[in-house]
């Protein structure tokens, strides 16, 4: 394929207008020694039909969640996505627009992002939100950087119950900086408040927790907020946005910064990306926030309009003193989340959350009643829970997979002491029949 649109006569005329004899002449500045003297070693281009065949030959070797029954979670969830989300967010005008620097030419995307920001605030109970970051883990890292700047402190305390990949990413981000990262252990699948209280000191910039935790348990955020705030530290909460359809939002429980993975909000599993990092904060941190923020104002004639706000925080203006280096964000994913949230609305999000709760508890009860399986933790959970089994996790999961069921995420990879555990996530999309099939498969494993 070739997407250029010039024919030979046109090229000749253009070269004439430029005043050179060949396209090669335009590259004359590149010294010979710096040139590639052979064709790129990349297969020849193909037509659309061949390309589709190639892609199909690749997808044929993937087993996807339209064929399998997915109980995997751990940060990526098989929630239902209304058809309108694809159709509306997929419109070419949204897809092929750039960042809305030219406000007058971008009122559509700007308004959509303003509405997105608002809905993220409504979900999380926070005051303000940005227009997206890459995904949850790097958003958590950005939150830590904000906390460091806001407190001028250099220690960060992270709960062991935070997603291990998030902790890994925090590690990488912190490694270049003079920032201490301390991890506090957990009790019953959630942060142990007494250990946390000991770990937090007056050089602590932030406490980072996740709720529900990586193990599915709901954190008692109010207690954790008190501990953080008592020490002058910020509480950073990574939250499952779907859980906000049912649980008290972190903003009501003392969180200073709320981040999280927006994938659950209308974004396909996509093998892990592109996803959506959302970022919400108390009002006072607005000017320290990373990423783009859309504001509402007026045009020269006083009509309502939208534009990027607080650009002076950003890299293209503030350069090395910017609040973050982020430039390209996840605009289209934020749009998807916005369409999803607007489609669901107040009652829809509550219904999704309620069904997750009911179905996860139905599954947990039935699994716990099986011989050789038990629930690892007693703390309340929302849509995901940790199962312990003496039957050998890999064998159990493999048996389920053979029956077309993705039964859970094994924990041994990250936690040696939990090698006999796996987490099971149950979304509103799962049917009782599918859960029963899971239970049967586990039983016969």
């Amino acid at each position, binding site marked *: 394929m070739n997407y250029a649109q010039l024919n030979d006569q046109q090229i000749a005329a253009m070269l004439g207008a430029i005043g050179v004899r060949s396209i090669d002449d335009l590259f004359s500045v590149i010294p010979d020694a710096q040139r590639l003297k052979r064709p790129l070693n990349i297969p020849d281009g193909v037509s659309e039909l061949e*390309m589709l065949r190639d892609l199909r030959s690749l997808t044929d070797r993937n087993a996807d969640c339209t064929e399998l029954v997915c109980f995997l979670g751990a940060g990526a969830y098989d929630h239902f996505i209304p058809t309108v989300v694809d159709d509306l967010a997929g419109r070419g005008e949204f897809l092929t627009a750039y960042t809305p620097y030219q406000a007058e030419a971008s009122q559509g995307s700007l308004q959509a992002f303003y509405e997105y920001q608002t809905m993220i605030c409504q979900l999380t109970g926070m005051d303000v939100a940005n227009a997206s970051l890459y995904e949850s883990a790097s958003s958590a890292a950005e939150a830590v950087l904000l906390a460091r700047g806001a407190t001028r402190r250099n220690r960060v305390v992270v709960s062991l119950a935070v997603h291990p990949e998030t902790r890994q990413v925090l590690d990488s981000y912190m490694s270049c900086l003079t920032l201490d990262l301390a991890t506090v252990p957990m009790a019953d699948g959630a942060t142990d408040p007494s250990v946390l209280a000991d770990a937090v000191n007056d050089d602590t910039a932030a406490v980072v927790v996740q709720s529900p935790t990586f193990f599915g348990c709901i954190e008692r955020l109010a207690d954790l907020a008190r501990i953080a705030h008592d020490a002058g530290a910020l509480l950073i909460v990574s939250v499952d946005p779907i859980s906000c359809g049912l649980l008290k939002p972190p903003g009501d429980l003392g969180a200073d910064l709320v981040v999280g993975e927006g994938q659950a909000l209308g974004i396909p599993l996509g093998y892990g990306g592109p*996803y959506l990092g959302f970022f919400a904060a108390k009002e006072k941190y607005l000017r320290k926030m990373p990423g783009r923020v859309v504001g509402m104002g007026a*045009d020269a004639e006083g009509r309502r309009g939208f534009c990027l706000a607080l650009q002076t925080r950003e890299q293209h203006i503030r350069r090395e003193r910017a609040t973050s280096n982020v430039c390209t964000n996840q605009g289209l994913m934020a749009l998807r989340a916005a369409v999803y949230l607007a489609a669901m609305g107040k009652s829809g999000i509550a219904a999704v959350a309620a069904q997750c709760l009911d179905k996860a508890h139905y599954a947990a009860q039935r699994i716990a009643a099986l011989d050789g399986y038990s629930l690892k933790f007693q703390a309340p959970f929302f849509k995901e829970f940790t199962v312990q089994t003496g039957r050998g996790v890999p064998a159990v999961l493999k048996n389920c997979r053979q029956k077309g069921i993705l039964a859970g995420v094994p924990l041994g990879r990250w936690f040696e002491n939990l090698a006999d555990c796996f987490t099971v996530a149950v979304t509103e999309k799962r049917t009782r029949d599918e859960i029963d099939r899971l239970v049967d498969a586990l039983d016969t494993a």
Partner: protein
Amino acid sequence: MASGNDMTTHHQNEAPLLFEKSTPGTCAASLPRSDVPAVDRNAVIGADLLADAPPQLPEIGELDLVRHYTRLSHRCFSIDEHFYPLGSCTMKYNPRINERAAAMPGFAQVHPYQDESDVQGLLELLYRLRMDLAEVSGLAEVTLQPAAGAHGEMTGLMIINAYHRDRGQPRTKVLAPDSAHGTNPASCTICGKSYQQIASLKSGRIDVDALRQAVDDDTAALMITNPNTVGVYDEQIADIAEILHARGALLYLDGANLNAILGIARPGDFGVDVMHFNTHKTFATPHGGGGPGAGPVGVADHLRPFLPVPQVVRRDDGTFAWDEDRPKSIGKVRSFYGQIGVLVRAYTYVRALGGDGLLDVARKAVLNANYLAARIKGRYELPFPPPYAHEFVALPHFDEQDISNVDVAKRLLDFGMHPPTMSFPIAHCLMIEPTETESLASLDAFADALIAIADEAKDHPERIREAPHTTPIRRMDEVGANRKLNVRWRPE
């Protein structure tokens, strides 16, 4: 909707906020009735953890939702409708087949924690892309993990940091020319590096003497963009690399402008140690109104130990896998593996074009830029001498009429064209990158528009100063919006 403003077009009618349209009790989505028993929430969760009421999201029926977003889509300029010559952004055509590729269930409906045996096709795709990008860049190995260009810069700097540490010589300073993109210095900060700016010459090239003076034993790296952001290929690049390498420092290439040299010159061949790619520029993945992109990072051989984990590899038995075994790795820069859906698009683009096609991209991108420059030369100042790479800088010199580059940009909107990049990398400029996918008719229409505006500056300067006239809103009062901040809706 039926505003009092009777003479406006239907496209320009007010677009009320979702919240203003909310009607309690309506909903655009539907769920199956639950087929499991409802739990006692107070018992299993506890009243203290339960919300008092659901979040106050808007309530909208499906038709009104469709109308809302259809209308908003009509209030956006986009490549699909408009010429969009944003310099340094490579706003080329985003092929529709790439969208179809990314939407295939075998790519889009896969969970990141599925077993490798479930995703062999996808892993092979990623592996091929990894190898193709290495080939394009002439570098030893590529990671696909970073989420965007800036994220790639950060990843690259982390790698550089790890490299110096590993050699027992931690270094704190990073240099970049003054024409560097804002993300370069910002990435330095996020990586705890101090940033030092190097002057450029009149020709747009880096001042090698200044560079030589700035490089010392604490210099971790120089970040450079080549061709740079004024559209000039800096042929000193090999010397620059030598200067750095001689002092143990590394050369980082900001790959935003790779489009101009695809198949012609390779960073790895002219001395680059680390670079990032912007798939959403060079490899035609859509910008999506801000993102998502992807920022793969390539490194020379000596930096391979420090690449992020996991890496997609091909095992001896021909299967594909994620390899975590890289003891000196900087770790992970994001969760899971990367912007997979974006990478699927990039793969589709690379394979559809092939090696020859990529070379053709560079040739026509450069041709188009130089043609546009030739067409407006004389009416706009071109501060740097041709030939240009894939983009060039122009200055509107209508100062006598008090017309700024912003005014010109806004006036272009009335011609149905998106303005170039503004005031970067030099003050008051327009930075113009047409890309290879534009037709001659589009290029000519744009040149005609710029010339018409130059004419208009004499006869009707107010038309330009008051532009735009034809967009859904007139010129936005950005100062006012920043003064009276309103970044979210609240009920009255």
